[in-house]
């Protein structure tokens, strides 16, 4: 009878898969990333859903907490090495992006695309805390597309955005995730924001 103290795990077989995939990634086996992505996405979604269910308001969906919790739950700590955490975070950040963009799409679908009261879409501003929900969803979708374009120009810049914005990771955590220095993270974050700023305002000048 297995005697490991594997309490609190989401799904035993999936963690094993994820841990294996991380090991493979560490050893640079081809296809490891592809294997990892859908697994992590799926698990993160479940974890997110559970977190949301626990909170009446849904406000406290903290992606950073999610990513950390997922890492602890999904990765066998006794086998994982220090670098694996970084890999996991990077992938989780991308998964977080998909999850949130997913919500935005569903929101748009429920509205059948239109904005309430026939409002005109306003200039994209992702920091306005007063922005109504529907416009937030649209803004997020626009950002996602812009981020895709950025990714084609410079993959790492888009990853930094995923880590910092979507997963809410700190500079240090992002540095770990992408295996770069913190200074580089700071710099790339500034560049990415500028690039996106430019890109998102392009339509309305």
């Amino acid at each position, binding site marked *: 009878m297995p005697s490991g*103290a594997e309490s609190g795990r989401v799904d035993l077989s999936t963690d094993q898969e994820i841990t294996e995939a991380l090991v493979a990634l560490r050893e640079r086996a081809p296809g490891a990333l592809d294997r990892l992505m859908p697994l992590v996405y799926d698990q993160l979604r479940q974890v997110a859903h559970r977190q949301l269910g626990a909170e009446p308001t849904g406000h406290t969906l903290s992606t950073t907490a999610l990513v950390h919790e997922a890492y602890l739950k999904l990765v066998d700590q006794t086998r994982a090495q220090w670098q694996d955490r970084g890999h996991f975070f990077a992938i989780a950040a991308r998964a977080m992006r998909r999850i949130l963009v997913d919500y935005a799409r569903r929101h748009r679908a429920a509205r059948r695309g239109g904005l309430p009261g026939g409002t005109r879409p306003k200039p994209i501003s992702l920091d306005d805390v*007063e922005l109504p929900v529907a416009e937030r*969803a649209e803004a*997020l979708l626009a950002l996602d597309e812009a981020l895709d374009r950025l990714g084609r*120009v410079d993959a790492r810049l888009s990853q930094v955005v995923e880590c910092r*914005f979507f997963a809410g990771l700190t500079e240090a955590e992002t540095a770990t995730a992408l295996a770069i220095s913190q200074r580089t993270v700071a710099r790339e974050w500034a*560049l990415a924001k500028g690039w996106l700023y430019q890109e998102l305002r392009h339509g309305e000048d």
Partner: protein
Amino acid sequence: MARTERDWRAIKRAVGEALDLLPGDRDPHLDARCPDPAQRAEASRLLRACERAAESPVLGAPAAEFAAPIVTEVEEGEDTVPEVLRSALADRYTIERELGRGGMATVYLARDERHGRPVALKLLRRGFLPELGSARGAAWFEREIEIAARLSHPHILPLYDSGAASGYLYYITPFVDGETLRERLRRTGRLPLPDSLRLLRDMARALAYAHRQGLVHCDIKPANILLNKEGDALVADFGVAKGLVAVRGLGEAHDETDSGDEVVGEEVPDGKLTGDPLTGDPLPDDQFPDGPLILGTPAYMAPEQVTGDPDIDARADLYALGAVAYELLTGAPPFAGRTGRALLTAHLSEIPESVGARRPDVPEPLAALVDRLLAKGPADRPRDADEVLGVLDAALSGASNAPPGETGRVRRTVRRAIILAAVFAVPLLLWRILPARDAVPRSERSIAVLPFATGNGGVEESAFSEGLADAVIEALAQLPSVRVAARTSAAAIESRDLDARTLGAMLDVETMLEGSVQRDGDRLRVAASLIRAGNGRTLWSETYDVAQSDLFALQEQIARDVAVALPGGAGGPLPARLVERGTEDRAAYELYQRGRYLWNTRQREGLFRALTYFEQAIQRDSAYARAYAGLADTWTFLGIFGHVPPRDAFPRARTAAERAIALDSLLVEGHASLAHLMFVYEWNWRAAGVAFERAIALGPRYPTLRLYYASLLHSVGRDDEALGQLAVAAEIDPLTPTGIFSGRIYVDTRQPDAAIRVLEQEIDLDPRRDLAHELLAHAYLQKGQQGEAVAAMRRAAALSGPRDSAQLAYVYAKIGQRAEARRVLARLLESGRPLDLLGFHLAMAYAALGDSDEAFRWLEAAYAEHASYMNLLAVTEAFESLRSDLRFDLLLRRMGLPAGDRGTA
């Protein structure tokens, strides 16, 4: 923009480098880096975009925050006005359509049937504050609204009605055909001067009136200012924020402890990281950066609101007014570009860029007014809204005289560290060692060092401040004739919010050191005060402002300054170096602090993260003995609590402990770690005993060491010595949980009255210690108080989970409710979780049921795993019934425990 990759790389590098330079040097840098004109042009565009993005922030708030309402809506499905509410209001109001939705409320257009007029119905979302759902919460809230409803002023949006229906709270105001100031700002950006002045005057008049009535708004912001078609401003939502703050104070955050975790071991986790289950206090942890629910809008919150000062007065509104004025005039509120904690901290300690600098055409008196409104201290702001009005009127009429007596310029004071209240998780174990202290007369030159307050409760900050306190404690402990209170005591009491006098008495010290720490960029500001415990008088205080890289020197300095400031002085020349750190690498040091901090939480997540931190510390400094000891301790806990199989965890613990000792054979922590794991896992009693003695010789004032040693002594039947060690521990640190250990000894030696006495004391100190409840149940069983026994064990089970479920089965079996016992066991077995690590407790239950075969089966399983508690096999009273069984004897021999009848009565 078709571009080659090489082009992009060049541009990226040029712009990236430029951003590091001063603004004036940036363009020349681009000139130098991008000779090609097309490249240059694009680089320039990107650079400008980066600069603007930094100013008016893009992606400032984390995506989760931004997307939260989206997520909520999607998760809640199509959000309509609940039918219950509609019908409850049907005879008065007909809800027509949704006008808008914010974070906490939705606004609907409705028709007031009685008066035949359109109204706005603002509905507070049900989940927003759970406390609002209670009758008491709703009553509190409504009271605040009622006070606000009495206001009657041309620039205050009147409140027509308010009420509660099916758990929703709502209030009714006139429907204003127009827009909010927020929408206007979004539309046009900053406002022309005459418009700004007019709006500000309207707001000031509204505030003056309301403040005279004794009402503070508490949430002045553009979204709460309505503009009608005539361009008048109406201040809305008076009373709401105040009401919510009042209600929030009533409530306790609810959080269920995760009883799914297997907890096998003596030490018990405190509860989930998301919040203390009983007090509702947030536990500091940067996993949850959002922290406690802050009521207020961060960009406009006055410093006293940020710190949660209960004595907020009208001047908080003035600050907010200043922030709004700032935004009207410059297009963004002060500190634009910050979010979350950074923004709140900025309100506390940063002077915003002057309005005049951002917009030169603002008349000097107006700019000066805004600066004053944004003063950190309420006393530095204009006295009241009337004074503000005076300045505005003068500015409007073009008069250029500043109000008499003002220079109009805010003094740029030296940034002062601000002492903030903070709540720390209660670390249950002291891990810092204090050097030998011999016969010192009590209360002569004694000091307790309280944890330094930090601005936020994140792990990094808390770990840092604890590290600072620890360094000072260690340093002071080396002084002759100074008794330094153990850190556990200080931290445990701190969270109970006691005054200096009581604290001093409880810790039995004559002085206390308290202070605050603030890290800002690469600066470090520490304020420290030495106060006399008896009367709270300050004996000495000092503020330090150094670069972070000078941390070590600062610790040394603080320790010296405090030593000299003690009554009676340092008592002789100070040693060349007071603070022993174990490493000169500051980054490694900080990593270590965080590791220790997280280790102290004894939570699963915290422990795993602690591993990472210690490993990283070691990576930076491979000779950092303490980090190895930390690693050993962490693996030990992981093994004890069953988060990692013991056979995986403890060998790692041993390797780390050995390395610690090899690097520094005088380091107590290394020996302590080794002794502990030898005892708990390797079951090498003799060697463990020797190791404990050695560790104690190195660190006689380390209470935890005594606790573990007592446990070892009890396991091998040396109870008198065990109790002796516990007495020493209690003397060193009155708040160390000796009751758990002595309680067990009393239970095992059948002294239930003594057990109950010490265990109830323990529960008083920490009601969530499930072990205390568990042992209490055993004591009650011995006294024949069955009802109490069941109740106590139920409490334990609720707090801990599977281990105490097995114990519950034991209790039922002992009182004759065998069917119930079997039911509990069946449930446990069916849960499908691996249970070998619970073998000890399961065996107990089966022994009580008389099923010795099953009991031995589980004991064997536990033995194979080297599961926790097995060390107590020889002495645990509950196994009395198995003692005569040969198998028991054999098992004891295999474990090297004293076999044969213990003869307790």
